[in-house]
């Protein structure tokens, strides 16, 4: 076709990025890659390889080693061997390595981008302009943290050897999100790239060599799910960081329950994209393009559920149709392509299946007239309208370029629909009214809220989800904490097993015996649910004995129905979560005041169980602990980040929601207060199970709460056998978090039983906590676990 003809047609024509250099790199390796272990390339023990292909044409790119159990073991051993030296390096030295990695990523940015696009199928524009620059930014940012580590995180230690498993949708970016914070904090790493997209991780291994990174600090073991499983189950791994499907996340939670591996999970999403009638509709539509038609919709935080205000639904749908018609779908190496290839056949099948199901459920399917390339895996941009919340396409993650649209009438309904999901990763709010936008943003259950923008990321802003979208954050200060532990905690001794725990051996136990002539305790202690004393559903009581075997009294024997009632009461006690921090502080101070007033009688009663000395200390320190959290209530602030955009990014510390607490046995009162108070201070509502050792403390506690203006339901107390109540709490899907303090068997059980809704579980890992030492037993560390960070991005400008 001549220039003259093109002058008439004004078509774009092809604009291919040259894959020559990437091809040459593959050829240099003979299109065959081994495992990067201990700084060298090693063949897989079993000699197995698998192919990685270009999804845009189905052609094989290279054969890649299938790492087996033995390979994972040698990688973990290499990482372990490298660990002492690496963590002993000065933070400045680690900062230099990370800085070098950032520089190297920039120096090889185009090769990385082209390789990523070839392996994954994403448009070269995205890998070139979004993925790779964010990778470099992540290493720069964490080079900075490495430099500041000792000043900013004194008395912290790295986890040790970290196993990291990353997905195929942003291969190198997810690698950066995992490796940069791990190295900055002094961990060594075994990383398993996704089976579909291992190539950039292998190129990154070469950059590690070029940077002179000590052998074994970063190990890359390619392979499929079996390789990941071997890594998860390896006994010498201290932490697992996983990004991927909620299904696999659940399996990992289950597999690591009996270990002390720390866990951070970044899982799926079905993120709402809310458009109000007063939004800039054209810009909102463009936001959708950056949301659901970014990376072929294979984005965990994709705005895949469109919620439109009824009044603008019709014109908005028309605008979306128009915009979809101008999206260009085709070979991802073309620089003028918006939608590239779906990563693999299996994913394409899934998308097709789910769209068909959505249509069967009554949705209207609209796709623009596009010609898909003859070869490769492509799926056209798709709008499903008339979708109802009951439809599978409104509930489940499709992970494709498919938008499901629904309408709402009021801001309240928008929030209700938005939160009507098991996920909570991200969300978008479009409105030109800042009052509406921020009001809604505050109510959304999601780790990220983008106001009038979409899919913005930055290393400084933590990313991660609520609910079944996982736990832990990546990026920001909070992301760093996932890779460190307080030094004292790491080295704390183990608690003896509960069945071996005799009261005489309990921590802080004194040799003193209570006065044998003490009058018998004949109070009737009840459960405390919804601000009321309640008899146990079972109608039974449990005997409570003193260390010398004397009967101290009888406590109600709570069962699963009592837990159910307590959770309902906690869920209803939203007024506590919405109370101002000042207000919460006032109530907590009042609790301290009332505890002080009853100090003597409570010491007296508690003495029968733990001895006078400990009882006195528990109450004295308990008053102080309440004061401490009353003080914290209005001081545990969030942050305002400075990502490189014109916006304010507000990191808010939000309460987790309803949290179950299994209280420690060592200090029946102080342990209870040490866990329940930080949760209350930041606005959680609590279902607490006092230790079996002295559940009678409940009677004193509810009198305390009742007289201190604590709203009913903010704290609920159910006594009984911890092992039974723990199960109900852990399995309860309306409990958002679980703090379990006990022996190793108990905390393992808590982790294993919590996989239903993937609630956040925090435990003492079976270790001894010195509740009598305020330096260890209170403060930020507890508050950090009592909150989750929500980042609200608010661009501005007129």
């Amino acid at each position, binding site marked *: 076709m*001549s220039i003259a003809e093109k002058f008439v047609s004004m078509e774009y024509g*092809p604009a291919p990025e040259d894959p020559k250099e990437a091809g040459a790199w593959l050829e240099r390796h003979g299109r065959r890659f081994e495992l990067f272990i201990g700084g060298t390339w090693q063949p897989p023990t079993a000699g197995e390889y698998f192919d990685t292909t270009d999804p845009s044409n189905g052609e094989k790119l290279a054969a890649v080693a299938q790492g087996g159990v033995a390979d994972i073991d040698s990688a973990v051993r290499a990482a372990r061997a490298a660990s002492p030296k690496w963590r002993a390096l000065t933070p400045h030295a680690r900062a230099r390595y990370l800085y070098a990695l950032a520089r190297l990523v920039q120096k090889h940015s185009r090769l990385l981008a082209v390789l990523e696009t070839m392996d994954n199928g994403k448009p070269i524009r995205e890998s070139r302009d979004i993925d790779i620059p964010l990778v470099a930014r992540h290493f720069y940012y964490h080079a900075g943290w490495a430099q500041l580590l000792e000043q900013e995180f004194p008395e912290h230690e790295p986890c040790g050897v970290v196993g990291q498993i990353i997905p195929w949708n942003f291969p190198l970016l997810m690698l950066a999100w995992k490796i940069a914070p791990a190295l900055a904090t002094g961990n060594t790493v075994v990383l398993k790239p996704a089976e579909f997209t291992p190539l950039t991780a292998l190129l990154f291994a070469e950059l590690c060599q070029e940077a002179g990174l000590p052998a074994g600090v970063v190990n890359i073991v390619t392979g499929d799910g079996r390789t990941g499983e071997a890594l998860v189950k390896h006994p010498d791994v201290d932490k697992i960081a996983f990004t991927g499907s909620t299904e696999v996340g659940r399996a990992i939670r289950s597999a690591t329950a009996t270990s002390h591996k720390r866990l951070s999970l970044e899982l799926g999403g079905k993120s709402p994209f809310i458009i109000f009638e007063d939004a800039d509709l054209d810009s909102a539509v463009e936001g959708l393009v950056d949301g659901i038609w970014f990376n072929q919709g294979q984005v965990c935080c994709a705005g895949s559920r469109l919620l439109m205000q009824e009044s603008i639904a019709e014109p908005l749908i028309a605008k979306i149709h128009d915009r979809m018609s101008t999206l260009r779908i085709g070979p991802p190496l073309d620089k003028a392509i918006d939608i590239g290839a779906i990563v693999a056949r299996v994913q394409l099948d899934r998308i097709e299946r789910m769209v068909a199901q959505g249509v069967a459920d009554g949705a209207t399917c609209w796709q623009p007239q596009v010609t898909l390339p003859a070869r490769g895996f492509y799926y056209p941009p798709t709008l499903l309208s008339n979708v109802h919340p009951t439809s599978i396409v409104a509930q489940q993650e499709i992970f494709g370029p498919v938008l499901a649209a629904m309408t709402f009438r009021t801001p309240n309904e928008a929030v209700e629909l938005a939160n009507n999901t098991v996920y909570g990763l991200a969300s978008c709010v479009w409105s030109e009214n800042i009052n509406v936008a921020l009001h809604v943003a505050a109510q959304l259950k999601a780790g990220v809220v983008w106001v009038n923008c979409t899919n913005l990321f930055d290393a400084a802003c933590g990313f991660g989800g609520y609910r079944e979208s996982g736990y832990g954050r990546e990026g920001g200060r909070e992301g760093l904490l996932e890779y460190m532990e307080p030094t004292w905690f790491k080295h704390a001794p183990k608690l003896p097993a509960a069945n071996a725990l005799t009261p005489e051996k309990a921590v802080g136990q004194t040799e003193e015996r209570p006065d044998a002539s003490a009058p018998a305790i004949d109070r009737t202690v009840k459960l405390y649910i919804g601000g009321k004393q309640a008899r146990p559903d079972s109608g039974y009581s449990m005997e409570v004995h003193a260390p010398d075997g004397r009967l101290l009294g009888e406590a109600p024997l709570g069962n699963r129905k009592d837990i159910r009632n307590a959770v309902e009461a906690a869920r209803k006690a939203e007024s506590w979560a919405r109370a101002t921090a000042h207000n919460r502080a006032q109530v907590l101070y009042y609790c301290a005041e009332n505890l002080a007033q009853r100090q003597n009688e409570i010491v007296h009663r508690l003495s029968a169980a733990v001895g006078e000395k400990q009882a006195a200390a528990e109450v004295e320190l308990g008053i102080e602990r309440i004061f401490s959290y009353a003080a914290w209530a209005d001081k545990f602030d969030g942050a305002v980040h400075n990502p490189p955009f014109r916006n304010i990014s507000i990191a808010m510390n939000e309460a987790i929601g309803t949290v179950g607490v299994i209280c420690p046995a060592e200090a029946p009162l102080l342990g209870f207060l040490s866990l329940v108070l930080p949760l209350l201070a930041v606005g959680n509502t609590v279902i607490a199970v006092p230790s079996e050792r002295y559940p009678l403390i409940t009677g004193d506690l509810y009198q305390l709460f009742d007289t201190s203006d604590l709203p009913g339901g903010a704290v609920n107390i159910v006594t009984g056998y911890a092992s039974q109540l723990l199960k109900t709490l852990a399995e309860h899907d309306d409990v958002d978090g679980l703090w379990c303090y006990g022996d190793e068997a108990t905390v393992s059980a808590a982790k294993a039983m919590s996989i239903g809704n993937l609630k956040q579980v925090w435990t003492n890992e079976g270790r001894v906590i010195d509740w009598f030492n305020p330096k260890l037993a209170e403060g930020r560390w507890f508050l950090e676990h009592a909150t989750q960070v929500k980042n609200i991005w608010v661009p501005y400008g*007129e």
Partner: protein
Amino acid sequence: MSVDDRYNNLAHKSGGESASGEQHPTSTVATLAGRPLLSNAGIPLDLKWLQEVRVNTSAVERRAQTQVARRTVKKEWQAAWLLRAISCMDLTTLSGDDTDERVRRLCAKARQPIQQDLVQKLGIEDLGIKVGAVCVYHAFIETALHALEGSGIPVAAVSTGFPAGLSPLPERVAEIRRSVEAGAHEIDVVITRAHVFGGRWQALYDEVATFKQACGAAHMKVILGTGDLLTFRNVARASFVAMMAGADFIKTSTGKEPTNATLPVSLVMVRAIREYAQQTGMAVGFKPAGGIRTAKQSLDWLALMKEELGLSWMRAELLRFGASGLLGDIERQLEHYATGRYSAEYRHPIA
């Protein structure tokens, strides 16, 4: 007086249905997403519409920024696009030191924007590439008309107290009439920016409608002075008022403002044109002016038109680049395409 009354009065005064006073052609001048559009005859001022205008600055900037990265044209496609940019160019001289001879030189370049040997190398003799128009001050209309005789290239004159637009209204209207009488085919008028700042939409509407009436059959391009208006919401609202009052084109700026045509401001105006077309079935042209100096920039703007409005807005009938230096860079790029060697400015005849 209600909005409708004002419109009726205006229509009555001009003796027709339209604010422009002429019987607008009923033939299709453009299509938008398959829908045929007529040329703009204006509509009554719709204040409710203006109130509903929403423009999110950051989102617009982001779209403009990524749009450039999302689209590119290479090789012969790029050559074709650059030729299209030439054909949509209002080759302009608006300097205090303009002379008849200078204008004649410009017109000669307008007739033959690309040197002959390059035309042959590109194989585009049959296209007869020439610029969209020549744009001058009133004083040079006659000179330009003579110099362009037989070329079919229209002459555009800036008017209405260009660039500030602050002379008394009767003088501004008289200026338009004089230019039209002198034979100008197109009139570039400037609005009173103060009307925008003051939210005096009726006054702005009346002003533009009066200009339109004075223009008669000449095409009217309404310069919003976006570098002065500053905010995108102002730009969007001024765009709608100008279109409602009968603008044939809306134009970003005078070229004399601190900031002239930018992609974000163009995006706002182009979206307004689209919205107006969808609501009224009438097509308004777009003219970015000032600051577009490189071939690459002209491609970015063409892509913007293609993406947001479609092919109809990639023709001189609905797109003009107000530029003086752009042509030279395009020629150098075309030379590079034809020879594979980078060219020098002095190798191409100047305007």
